[in-house]
């Protein structure tokens, strides 16, 4: 991995040397150098200048985060450069404008650097004809099986066919048949007939994921993407190839035939599987999440995410989700339960309450818990969750918001160091009430041989000293969680919580990037986002108010918690902001 997408892009040094070119007659000034896929500054290409001018250049193989291949030929454009006299000065037309010499041959916009005074022509009849020619070539052997293709609706062949396609094919020969439903690896299926051989997948896995797993076999029109014999395509980033495949050649076994993409609502969200916090788009329909896809964020994940994180959404729709408020074994309701909790906490002697929050909770929730803890003099901590990381995106810290917990004062240096104190407090009887948010405190560390599989669900917990016997000594155990577990079974008061896609909020990732996420679906049954009932609890217990919306809550936190000073909910934008950690 040559690029480090988790590092923030450095501010461009100024003054930036620029070049002014014309795109279809419109002048546009672009930097002379632009970052390539590794972040190295290289001459700006025509395609980048065209995009800067707001001109669309159709393309298949070009991808800003991959090395340039130049093989699809869809981005061919015509261009001209200023004619130079023998004195190396531009020759001028009668009207004083520079005389342009049109290049005799077209050039691929993705790989041709711009030069001062260059004129790029993207809409000449000849350019249109070339695009039509390329598209026709790509389609003659294509199966045209859009009705059963998962890519339909987000397919570049379909898209460009609108502008450059023909309603009827003049191809009367037999099509080339290639293998279909090829099992490339545990998560990827290849339909070689749909493939347009743009090699994005090959370049991604070789140059970004660092696993030279894919290549092309055979010649000419029979070219086929392939793995090495007997070597499955199974690294932890394979599903990115499905995203960047411009057609339906590579499909995800998980998403295949599950849902038409045009039915999916796209919600900006953040992955919760580790402390990297990749920006994602959650695809949902009617309160069911169907897929996660990485969302571009150069400060975090470029345009990639790991397979484990991507597939870690199925628990959201599990049928055994906690849906009811339960008070001492009886199904109850929020009004009753919150009143009971508020009364108990208000009456609790200082120091008799402990809170185990979760580093999977949002900054806003942790901020509210801190307020509650301060009022109650409660000792707080959170459960560490450590697995293995890699050099690309996966962080060894499997909690998405440890920095949020730290900055909000739930745990000061690292998570888990107060757990022993809480255990001894319960043992000695000084702690009588325990609030647990989103953690199964009875879960124990997982043997390393099981780690690999379990990692995909981020359920890697470190050893600590809280046991079921200890929990049994408590006067009141209040648990808010999403799924049933050993701890929820022992709860005196059980509150059903919401998954991140069922609420709004923000996380602070391992590098201090604060990112917000939006609500994609409704929580099931009586489940509620924790911040919603926490603000009631905080009001009831402390008398402080003003946290009724997530925007207000975040802005309040930004005012009160020094680390977040200066931030605002709206100012976070789609890609977040970085705070010192």
């Amino acid at each position, binding site marked *: 991995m040559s690029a480090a997408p988790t590092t923030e892009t450095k501010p461009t040094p100024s003054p930036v040397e620029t070049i002014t070119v014309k795109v279809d007659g419109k002048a546009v000034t672009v930097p002379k150098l632009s970052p390539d896929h590794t972040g190295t500054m290289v001459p700006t290409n025509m395609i980048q200048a065209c995009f800067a001018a707001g001109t669309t250049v159709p393309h298949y193989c070009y991808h800003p985060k991959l090395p340039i291949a130049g093989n699809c*030929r869809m981005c061919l454009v015509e261009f001209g450069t200023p004619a130079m006299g023998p004195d190396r000065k531009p020759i001028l037309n009668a009207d004083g404008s520079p005389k342009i010499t049109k290049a005799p041959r077209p050039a691929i916009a993705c790989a041709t650097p711009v030069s001062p005074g260059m004129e790029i022509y993207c809409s000449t009849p000849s350019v249109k004809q070339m695009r039509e020619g390329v598209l026709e070539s790509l389609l003659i052997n294509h199966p045209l099986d859009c009705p059963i293709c998962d890519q339909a609706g987000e397919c570049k062949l379909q898209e460009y066919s609108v502008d450059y396609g023909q309603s009827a094919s003049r191809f009367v020969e037999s099509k080339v048949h290639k293998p279909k439903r090829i099992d490339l690896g545990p998560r990827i299926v290849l339909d070689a007939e749909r493939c347009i051989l743009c090699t994005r997948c090959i370049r991604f896995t070789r140059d970004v994921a660092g696993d030279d797993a894919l290549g092309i076999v055979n010649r000419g029109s029979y070219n086929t993407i392939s793995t090495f014999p007997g070597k499955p395509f199974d690294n932890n980033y394979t599903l990115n190839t499905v995203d960047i495949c411009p057609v339906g050649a590579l499909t995800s076994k998980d998403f295949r035939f599950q849902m038409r993409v045009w039915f999916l609502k796209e919600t900006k969200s953040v992955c919760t599987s580790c402390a990297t916090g990749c920006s994602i788009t959650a695809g949902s329909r009617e309160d069911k999440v169907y897929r996660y896809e990485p969302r571009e964020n150069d400060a975090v994940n470029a345009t990639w995410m790991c397979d484990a994180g991507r597939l870690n959404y199925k628990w959201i729709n599990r049928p055994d989700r906690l849906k009811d408020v339960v008070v001492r074994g009886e199904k109850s309701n929020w009004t009753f339960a919150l009143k009971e909790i508020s009364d108990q906490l208000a009456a609790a002697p200082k120091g008799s309450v402990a809170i185990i929050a979760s580093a999977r909770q949002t900054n806003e929730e942790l901020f509210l818990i801190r307020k509650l803890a301060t009022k109650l003099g409660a000792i707080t901590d959170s459960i560490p969750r450590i697995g293995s990381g890699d050099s690309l995106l996966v962080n060894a810290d499997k909690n998405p918001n440890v920095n949020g917990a730290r900055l909000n004062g739930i745990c000061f240096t690292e998570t888990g160091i107060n757990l022993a104190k809480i255990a001894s407090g319960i043992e000695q009887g000084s702690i009588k009430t325990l609030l647990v948010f989103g953690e199964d405190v009875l879960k124990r560390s997982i043997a390393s041989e099981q780690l690999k599989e379990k990692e995909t669900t981020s359920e890697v917990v470190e050893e600590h000293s809280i046991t079921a016997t200890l929990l049994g000594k408590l006067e009141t155990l209040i648990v808010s969680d999403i799924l049933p577990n050993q701890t929820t079974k022992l709860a005196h008061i059980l509150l059903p919580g919401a998954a991140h896609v069922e609420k709004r909020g923000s996380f602070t990732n391992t590098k201090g990037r604060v990112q917000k996420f939006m609500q994609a679906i409704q929580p099931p049954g009586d489940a509620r986002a924790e911040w919603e009932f926490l603000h009631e609890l905080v009001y009831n217990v402390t008398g402080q108010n003003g946290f009724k919306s997530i925007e207000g809550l975040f802005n309040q936190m930004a005012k009160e918690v020094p680390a977040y000073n200066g931030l605002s909910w709206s100012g976070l934008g789609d890609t977040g902001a970085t705070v010192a950690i």
Partner: protein
Amino acid sequence: MPQEHRLILKNIDQPGYTPDIECYLKHGGYEVLKKALAIQPKDLPEGKKQSGPEQIRDDVKLSGLRGRGGAGFSAGLKWSFVDRRSGKPIYLICNADESEPGTFKDRQIIHKDPHQLIEGMVISCYANDVKLAYIYIRGEMPEGARILNQAIAEAKAKGFLGKNICGSGYELEIHVHRGAGAYICGEETGLIESLEGKRPYPRIKPPYFPAVLGLYLCPTIVNNVETLCHVKHIVAMGGAEYAKLGTPNNTGTRIVSLSGQVKKPGYYEIEVGKATLGELINDPAFGGGLRDGRQLKAIIPGGSSSKVLKAGERFKLKRKAEGKEVEQEVGVLDLPYDFDSLAAAGTMSGSSAIIVIDDSTDIVEALANLSEFYAHESCGQCTPCREGSLWMSKTLHRLTHGGGRAGDADYLVKIADNIPGGRTICAFGEACSWPVQSFVAKFKDDFVAKGKADEEKRAKESAAKH
């Protein structure tokens, strides 16, 4: 009467001439190398000094030598593009991937006079400060590879290769690399990829111009076998003297591979432009004419990818005569066989492989054959060529197997028009589409007639069924 002018082929096929180093040395071998290594720095007017290698490079420029591989690009100019300030090693690769159908000149040199190539290479490498060179030889030529490896071992043993060549302190290694059998490996950047151990996908230019970012992304010179041999003769004669051979801008000699329906197919070395196409085909010194009773139908003048010439075609050529440019009309057989005249006639001398087609040949079948070759050899990297080459081949297969349509002639040209002219990464796009464009343009009646006949036959069959 035009005659052969044997410069490269001087010793080849002479009785008793063998490819071993003893024989080569007996015939004055490696003397030119010694001469090249002994060239002393020369004082330039501005007080600077010009080194021996620089003088050789100048001489090659002065000679007007044009590449003998196919494109006919100035060898001296190619060398002058080499990035000599990058600090990276400069590589030289001898392109011995002779695969253009109809071409069989380089293999004569490799098989019969390998030391001439090695001497030419050592001189060229010395001139360009190259310490490591490769001979990329076509996979289908294992015997050539064996001969070259033996020649390299012999040259090394005699001190013409390796460390301290001829006591000059200059050091060079040459490795022979065998291709795996693909036409596209003759394209210089495809060749470089293949040499690096990858699929021979030609590279995009920009940025991968071999002179700057070639083998292992270092400055690289890729020259044809014959071109490198010429360097030896340029150094032996001096560039100015060499330039007197041939015609202006088309200097030196050239080996022509003559094949097809002539009485005496074979390889003939001529001064460039000093013999016409007609002479090469009909003169007793060369092809000796067509087989008895046959009429000339077409000539493929420069390897199978060059545009076909039709018997009886006439061209208007611009000529410089007595300082003035005059236009002159010439028949196809009177075309001087050189780079510029054939380019002016809308085709090219390419790899100087002339394929003669007489009236016994079905021109549609001939094109179908060529197209099948190109469809098989397209590397498949870029879209227009990958899809277009097979499309054309399938159409021609249909047209030659009873499934033709009268409209197939136009259909074929439309397919072919989508491939060349800078739409593809390498010149293979032109190579596969030019034959189709030119065959159909010049022999359209044959294509239409074939299609029509098929249509009528099908109509009759269908009527008989009902």
